[in-house]
C-alpha cells in the first residue's frame, strides 16, 4: 500500500507539547495554567436561551452567513464597542469559532507562493493554515523589550515583493501585549505602501484592561484592506459553542463565504442562538468576568515578579508571559520540570514562536485560589533548583 498522506499534511509539524499532555495525564492534582480558555461556565442566561431553542425545535441549518439576527447584533456590537462599521448583509460571516474564520480568511486571499507574515509569538494555527493554503508563512518577531508589540521596523524587515498579507493577534496570545492606535498607525503606513492585506484576530479584544481595545479597521486606510476576526469564546466564556465571525469588505467576504459554505455550511444553530443571547443580555456578566481577570492578573503578575520571574504587566487577554531566564533553564526545560516536580502546567513560549523562547505562557483564567497555589508551588520549585 502506498502512503496516502498528502505532502501538505505531512509537512505540518507535530504539536510541540504532545509529551506534556502525556505527563499531565498521569497526575491527579495538576494546576493547569496551560489552557487558553476561561474557567467560567457560559453565563446561565445564554445557556438557558439555547436550551429553550432546542426544546422549540431549532435544530436546522441556518443561512450560510449565519442567522440575520446574530449578524445584525454583531454589527451593532462592533460599532458600539470598537467603532468599526460592518454591514450585516455583505460584510459579516458567522463561523465555527475564530479558528475557522482564520482558515477561510487565509484561504480566501492566499495564492501559491504568496508570502504571509505572521506576527509571533502567536496562536499555533496561523502558520499551518498558510502552508495548507499553499502560501509561505514568514514570521515577524514581537519582542519583550517592545512590550511584545509589533513594530514597523520589524515588519519592514520582513516584507518582500512576494508579501501578500500580515496576520496579527492583539491583545496577544501568548504575551498579553496590546497595540494602541499610535502603534497601528505606524503599521498602517507600511501596509498601504506595500499594498498588503491585514488579518486581525481580535478574539481577546474585550479582555483589555488598561484603556480600550483599538480595532485597526477603524483606520479608514486599513478598513478596505483588513479582515477582522472575533468570536464569543473568550469574552463570553463560550469556547465549546464554537462561534466566531469574520468581517471584511464585501468582495473579500464573498470569497470567504464560498469557502465557508463548502467546508462548514453554517455554524451550529444552537451556538448562534446562544451568541445572539450573549450580545442581547450577556454583557453585564461579560464585564464581571473581565473585572475578575484583571484582579487575577494583578495577583499573579505581582507574584511572578516577586519570585524573580520577570513579567511585564499584560494589558490584555488572560496570559502572563514571564521570562524564565533567571533560572538558567530553557523554557521547555522549565515547563517540563515544573510539571514533573510541582504539577503545574505552563506552555513553553518557544512552541508559540522564536520570540517566545525563554518565556512561559501562564493562563490566569483559573481561580485566584488556584493562582496562589500555583505561585506557592513555583516558589518551592525555584527553591529546589537553586
Amino acid at each position, binding site marked *: 500500500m502506498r502512503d496516502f498522506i498528502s505532502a501538505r499534511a505531512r509537512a505540518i509539524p507535530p504539536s510541540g507539547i504532545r509529551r*506534556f*499532555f502525556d505527563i499531565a495525564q498521569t497526575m491527579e492534582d495538576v494546576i*493547569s495554567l496551560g*489552557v487558553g*480558555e476561561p*474557567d467560567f461556565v457560559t453565563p446561565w442566561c445564554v445557556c438557558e436561551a439555547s436550551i429553550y431553542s432546542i426544546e422549540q425545535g431549532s435544530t436546522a441549518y441556518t443561512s450560510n452567513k449565519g442567522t440575520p439576527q446574530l449578524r445584525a447584533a454583531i454589527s451593532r456590537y462592533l460599532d458600539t464597542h470598537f467603532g468599526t462599521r460592518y454591514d450585516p448583509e455583505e460584510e459579516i460571516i458567522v463561523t465555527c469559532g475564530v479558528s475557522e474564520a482564520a482558515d477561510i480568511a487565509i484561504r480566501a486571499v492566499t495564492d501559491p507562493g504568496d508570502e504571509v507574515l505572521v506576527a509571533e509569538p502567536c496562536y*499555533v494555527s496561523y502558520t499551518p493554515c498558510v502552508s495548507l493554503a499553499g502560501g509561505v508563512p514568514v514570521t515577524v518577531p514581537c519582542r519583550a523589550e517592545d512590550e511584545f508589540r509589533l513594530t514597523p521596523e520589524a515588519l519592514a524587515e520582513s516584507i518582500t515583493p512576494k508579501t501578500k498579507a500580515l496576520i496579527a493577534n492583539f491583545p496577544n496570545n501568548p504575551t498579553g501585549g496590546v497595540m494602541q492606535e499610535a502603534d497601528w498607525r505606524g503599521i498602517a503606513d507600511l501596509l498601504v505602501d506595500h499594498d498588503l492585506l491585514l488579518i486581525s484576530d481580535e478574539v481577546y479584544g474585550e479582555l483589555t484592561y488598561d484603556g480600550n481595545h483599538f480595532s485597526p479597521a477603524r483606520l479608514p486606510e486599513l478598513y478596505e484592506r483588513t479582515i477582522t476576526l472575533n468570536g464569543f469564546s473568550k469574552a463570553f466564556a463560550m469556547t465549546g459553542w464554537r462561534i466566531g465571525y469574520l468581517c471584511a469588505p464585501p468582495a473579500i467576504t464573498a470569497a470567504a463565504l464560498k469557502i465557508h459554505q463548502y467546508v462548514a455550511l453554517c455554524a451550529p444553530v444552537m451556538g448562534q442562538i446562544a451568541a445572539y443571547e450573549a450580545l442581547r443580555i450577556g454583557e453585564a456578566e461579560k464585564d464581571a468576568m473581565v*473585572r475578575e481577570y484583571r*484582579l487575577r492578573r494583578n495577583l499573579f503578575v505581582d507574584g511572578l515578579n516577586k519570585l524573580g520571574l520577570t513579567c511585564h504587566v499584560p494589558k490584555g487577554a488572560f496570559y502572563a508571559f514571564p521570562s524564565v531566564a533567571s533560572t538558567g533553564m530553557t523554557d521547555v526545560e522549565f515547563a517540563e520540570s515544573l510539571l514533573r516536580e510541582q504539577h503545574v502546567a505552563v*506552555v513553553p513560549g518557544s512552541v508559540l514562536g522564536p520570540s517566545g523562547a525563554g518565556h512561559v505562557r501562564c493562563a490566569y483564567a483559573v481561580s485566584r485560589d488556584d493562582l496562589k497555589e500555583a505561585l506557592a508551588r513555583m516558589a518551592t520549585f525555584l527553591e529546589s533548583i537553586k
Partner: protein
Amino acid sequence: MDEKDRILLHLLEENCRTPTKELAVLAEMSEEDVKSRIGRLEAAGAIRRYGAVVDWERAGDGNVAAVLELKVSPERDFGYDRIAERIARFPQVRSLRLMTGAYDLQILVTGPSMHEIARFVSEQIAPMDRIRETATHIIMKTYKENGTTFAEREEVERLPYSF
C-alpha cells in the same frame, strides 16, 4: 464611592479576611490607601459588619427557619417604621423587609424547633397591634445564600493544555 471603593467592597463581600496586602495588589493601590478607604467605608456605614456565610445544616445545627408574611395596618405619620422597629428587636428575627405586593413585611425567623417558631409567631408576632394577618412558611432546604451556592456540582473536565 468610586470604582476603587467598589472593587474593595466586592472583594471584602467575597472574603472579608483577605489580607490588606493582597487587597492592595488586587485593587492596584497602596496598603495605606486600602486602609484609609476601608476606614472611610466603615465610618460611612457602607460596611455594616464582617461575617461568614454559614451553612448551618452542614454544620450540624438542627435549627429551623421560616419565612413569615405579615399584613400590617400602617400608622399615620410613621407608616410601617415603628412596627418594623418593634419586630426587629426580637433576636429570632434574622431579617426583616417591607415588600410590595400581597403582604407588607417579610421576616426570616430561626428557632431550635418548629414548635418554638410556632410559639414565637402565635404568642409574640400575631398578637401585636396593627398586625392583621400572618402566614408562616417553613424553609425546607437552602440552595443558595447571599450569592453562595450550597449544593456542590461536579467539576467539568477541562484539557490540561490548549493554545
